[in-house]
Structures are given as structure tokens and as C-alpha cells.
């Protein structure tokens, strides 16, 4: 492995360069580009569902508007605020670890973990409320909403549980990554490598933020 002189003072730019790269700058660019490539494939997964939802929103505006009103806007807003705040703490984790401030980085990372768990707790409360109201047409559960647009409302809730369920799965993956990074920071064996891992994880976490903003907009606030 090579070690190269660099003017970049960030911790992520330090350390030995992996043998397949010529310089740390190239290694970092590859890391980031690889993650963006992965996120683009994720966008393909979510993009199809978003596009289908928009089509049905256009076809059944009344039913989807009626269904959207059944969701709790305060809970949706709280979750959005919590996730946006976790985006801030995650970027501050990256900022502080690059400055070599291990303790601050760990605190910001733990704050991100706590906010992510809070998001899941609020979502679980919301799902429980919808279960009690009979608005959960999944896993063979009865759907009890009646009215002129009952079938359209049912379709909306299929989208709702698919999108929020898929998002929760991504949150769980993200929380697993954050937990692993927290252990790495506690052990502090290869700081420059940990800084680069934080950089990549921060990209994923911010992308989960972006997905939630789209989901919140489509399901909770966009009514035709």
C-alpha cells in the first residue's frame, strides 16, 4: 500500500491508499461515486412506486384526498422534523470526525441514532392508530373504511404501507450502519478509514431523508 502526501487536512484524506488506487483523492472519489451509483439504483426502486402513485392520484383525486385526510398530519410533520434533525446531526458527525474530534463525533452519531429510533417509534404509533381504525389492508387484515370512494381509499393505503414500510426497512439498515460505526469509533483502530466510512454512511442517511420528504409530500400534503 502507498502513502501519499496531501494538502487535505481532513481525517478522511489521511492514511494509506489502497493498492488499486494511485492517490487518496482517487480513492475517495471512487468511494463517493460508488455510493451515488448505489443510491441511483435505490431511486429506480422508489421511482417506479412514486410514478404509479402519481398516476393513481391523478385518476382518483377525490378518493386519494379523502384517504390523505385520514392520516395524522402532526405525526407526519413530527417525523419529518425528527428526520431532518437527524440529517443535521449526521452531517455534524462527518464534520467533527474529519476534524479528528472523536468524542464530539460519537455524541453526534448517538444523537442521530436516537433520532432515527424516535422516527421509528412515531411511525409505529401511527401504524398502531391506523390498525385500530381498520385502515390497514395488509397481511390479511380487514379494511373497515366505508363510503363512496372506499376502494380508492383502500388503494391509497396499499401505497401508504408499501412506501412507509419500504422506507422503514431502509431506516433499519441505516440504523444498523450507524450502530456499527459507533462501535468502530469506540474502538478507534483506524481513524482515517472510520472517517471515510462515516462519509459514505452520511450519504445513505441523507438519501433516506430525501426519500421521506418525497413520501411525506405525496401521501400527507399533496391533494389534487
Amino acid at each position: 500500500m502507498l502513502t501519499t502526501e496531501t494538502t487535505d487536512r481532513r481525517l478522511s484524506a489521511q492514511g494509506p491508499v489502497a493498492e488499486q488506487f494511485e492517490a487518496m483523492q482517487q480513492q475517495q472519489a471512487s468511494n463517493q461515486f460508488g455510493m451515488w451509483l448505489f443510491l441511483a439504483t435505490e431511486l429506480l426502486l422508489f421511482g417506479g412506486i412514486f410514478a404509479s402513485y402519481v398516476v393513481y392520484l391523478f385518476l382518483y383525486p377525490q378518493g386519494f384526498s379523502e384517504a390523505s385526510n385520514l392520516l395524522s398530519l402532526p405525526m407526519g410533520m413530527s417525523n419529518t422534523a425528527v428526520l431532518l434533525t437527524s440529517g443535521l446531526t449526521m452531517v455534524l458527525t462527518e464534520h467533527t470526525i474529519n476534524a479528528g474530534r472523536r468524542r464530539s463525533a460519537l455524541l453526534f452519531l448517538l444523537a442521530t441514532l436516537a433520532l432515527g429510533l424516535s422516527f421509528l417509534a412515531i411511525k409505529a404509533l401511527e401504524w398502531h392508530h391506523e390498525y385500530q381504525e381498520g385502515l390497514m389492508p395488509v397481511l390479511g387484515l380487514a379494511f373497515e373504511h366505508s363510503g363512496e370512494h372506499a376502494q380508492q381509499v383502500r388503494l391509497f393505503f396499499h401505497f401508504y404501507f408499501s412506501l412507509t414500510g419500504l422506507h422503514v426497512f431502509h431506516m433499519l439498515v441505516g440504523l444498523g450502519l450507524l450502530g456499527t460505526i459507533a462501535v468502530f469509533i469506540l474502538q478507534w483502530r483506524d481513524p482515517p478509514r472510520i472517517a471515510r466510512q462515516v462519509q459514505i454512511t452520511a450519504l445513505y442517511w441523507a438519501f433516506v431523508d430525501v426519500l421521506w420528504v418525497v413520501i411525506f409530500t405525496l401521501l400527507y400534503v399533496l391533494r389534487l
Partner: protein
Amino acid sequence: MNEFRLYLLSWIVLLALLVVVAAGAELLSGMLAIALVLGGALCMIGVIIVMFMGLKTADALLKVYATGGVLWLGFLVVLTMADYMTR
């Protein structure tokens, strides 16, 4: 402005946009509400991508790639809707 303040400011802007989007959906109706909700959401996404995903300091290739990703999602939705809206 140091980076810490810039991130803090971005977060405040995001929360303000969230309030604007929710208020727009609750208080307004019709095209104005749709425009406000979509405009606000796009601004939020823009702030997250530029500030929290590091696109502000990324190299040109990454900027082109990220812009392409968002544009292609736009094409997917717009072209699909163009079909349904003109039937």
C-alpha cells in the same frame, strides 16, 4: 460563515420549508396549494442534496451524475403522466 453555522442554517431553512409546505396544504386549495407544496418539497430536497449529501463540495462528475439521477426521475414521472393526462 463557518461550516457548522452553514449546516445549522440549512436545518433551520428545512424546518421553515416544512412549515410552509404543511400550512400551504392545510390553508390553501387548488393550483396555488399544489404549486406551494411541490415547490416547497423540491426546495427541501435541493437543500438536503446540496448541503447534507455534500454536493456543494463534490467534483464536477458527481454533480452531473446526481443532477442526472434527479432529472431521470422527473422524466419518469412527467412522461408517465403525459400519457395518462392526454388519454
